[in-house]
């Protein structure tokens, strides 16, 4: 073959390329199809009970009358409070680690390593911690909305910190230098340039972290296992239940009617999750357009 000819791609290379592509597509399809199948089966099973009763009725020992009103409100209370606690703390920790911490100091590296590890700790461990420190022991809050929110905050805080750090790190250094060169202080640079530029990433990360909190049953079951609550939370010190616990409870009942109800409640939980993710996507797009 002379040097000036462009060699054709061999049959084997083409085949390998095609196979690689196909295997990537199959990986994607497996995930999507599983999700679709799951949602479809939930919808079919829960369909008879997917009406306003599930939203507005309180739990009852009679499956015909039972609904998830208190669980829905409990979820909103607990997750809302978790957001109020974790977002300022998580963003603050992320700003410290990205903008102020000197990585040559061993304690800063230790904190970083710890946060990475905490994100991987099983949620039940946080439940034990919450039971020991928030419900009983140290704070003695009892089985309340506040104790649950504090426990879930511990659970999602590492995720919020890590995603906020990534968002802050993605802001180019040239922005910081430009602001500092104008005579802005470090604080002004962070508050007026770095944080606004990092908002889309931080919002997305925080909402995804809260989506994890909303689906958690294990740590909250451990806190108190309150499943039969016939009133909505009225404050931080109210007793509460949340959707995953209510679902868990209904599924463990012997009557089939409760299983249908559980499927309907799962559908409600999924709608809440999709709504939260939609907000995340909306925020991201809105702020990106502004640039």
């Amino acid at each position: 073959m002379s040097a000036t000819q462009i060699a054709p791609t061999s049959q084997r290379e083409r085949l390998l390329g095609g196979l690689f592509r196909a295997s990537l597509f199959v990986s994607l399809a497996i995930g999507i199809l599983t999700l679709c199948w799951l949602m479809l089966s939930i919808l079919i099973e829960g369909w008879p009970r997917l009406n306003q009763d599930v939203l507005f009725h309180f739990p009852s020992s009679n499956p015909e009358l039972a609904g998830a009103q208190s669980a829905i409100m409990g979820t909103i209370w607990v997750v809302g409070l978790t957001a109020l606690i974790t977002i300022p703390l998580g963003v603050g920790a992320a700003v410290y680690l990205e903008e102020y911490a000197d990585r040559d100091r061993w304690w800063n590296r230790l904190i970083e390593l710890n946060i990475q590890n905490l994100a991987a700790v099983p949620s039940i461990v946080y439940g034990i911690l919450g039971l020991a420190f928030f419900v009983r022991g140290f704070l003695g809050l009892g089985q309340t909305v506040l104790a649950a929110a504090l426990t879930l905050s511990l659970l999602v805080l590492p995720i919020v910190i890590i995603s906020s750090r990534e968002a802050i790190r993605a802001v180019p250094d040239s922005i910081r230098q430009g602001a500092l060169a104008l005579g802005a202080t470090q604080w002004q640079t962070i508050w007026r340039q770095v944080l606004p530029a990092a908002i889309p990433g931080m919002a997305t990360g925080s909402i995804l972290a809260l989506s994890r909190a909303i689906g958690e049953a294990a740590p909250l079951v451990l806190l108190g296992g309150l499943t039969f609550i016939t009133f909505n939370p009225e404050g931080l010190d109210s007793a509460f239940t949340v959707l995953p616990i209510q679902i868990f409870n209904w599924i463990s009942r012997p009557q089939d009617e409760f299983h249908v109800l559980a499927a309907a409640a799962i559908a409600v939980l999924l709608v809440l999750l999709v709504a939260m993710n939609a907000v995340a996507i909306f925020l991201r797009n809105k702020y990106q357009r502004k640039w």
Partner: protein
Amino acid sequence: MTDPVVQRPVAAPDAPPATDGAAPLGEPVFRLRGVSVAYGGTPAVKDIDLDVHASRITALIGPSGCGKSTVLRCLNRMNDLVLDARVAGQVLYHGQDIYASHVDPVEVRKLVGMVFQKPNPFPKSIYDNIAFGPRVLGMKGDMDEIVERALRRAALWDEVKDRLKQSAYGMSGGQQQRLCIARALATNPDVILMDEPCSALDPISTARIEDLLLELRRSYAIVIVTHNMQQAARVSDRTAFFTVDLDEGERHRTGRIVEFDATEKIFQNPADPRTEAYVTGKVG
């Protein structure tokens, strides 16, 4: 607010002499004596003596890695942002040592503006890009007027006056760089530092920035780092030629000033053969 420790002389910049480089030099704005900078113990530049004058453009030229940008960043203490950077020697601004222990670098940067190699507008509107500096400095007055004046001085007003609220990211590279110049002018500095401001721009945008520099020279002391020797010859009044020395068994590359003089002298009748070799294109 307490008085800043570093101050500009009272007269500047409202009554600058319109010299166009012809009048006598007078007292320098910046006087560097025996300045050395080391990063993590490794010297980057050594024994720099340099004077920067008002109403003059001072060009820093020389091969890559000779420390031109390092010296430039001494003048507004941007080297402070680099970990382990150490500056020795004297950097005097109107006779005040800006590296004295009681001087806050933020105060220095209010008086010494900077334009970077790559245009770095903030991810905000054109208006907010200009208004950021005056806002953080707490400048009094009508912000619309401040913004318009800065954009006019940077010869950008006519191009952007109808889209002040639009993102600065929608501008061309040359416009973005002039926006960054306008942003620096808005805080009313005494000196403007430019770190290869045209290296990311096409020749037409470069020519517009050079015209702008000659215009701004009336009111500011300008220091420009450039790799483009024609640019130095075209716009600057005084030129410092840097070179790189290999120290201590070629382990460190250290920048030094070979020659600092009027630009015409540097380009037409240099005293040092190394300068001649560089400006005539024999090396580098």
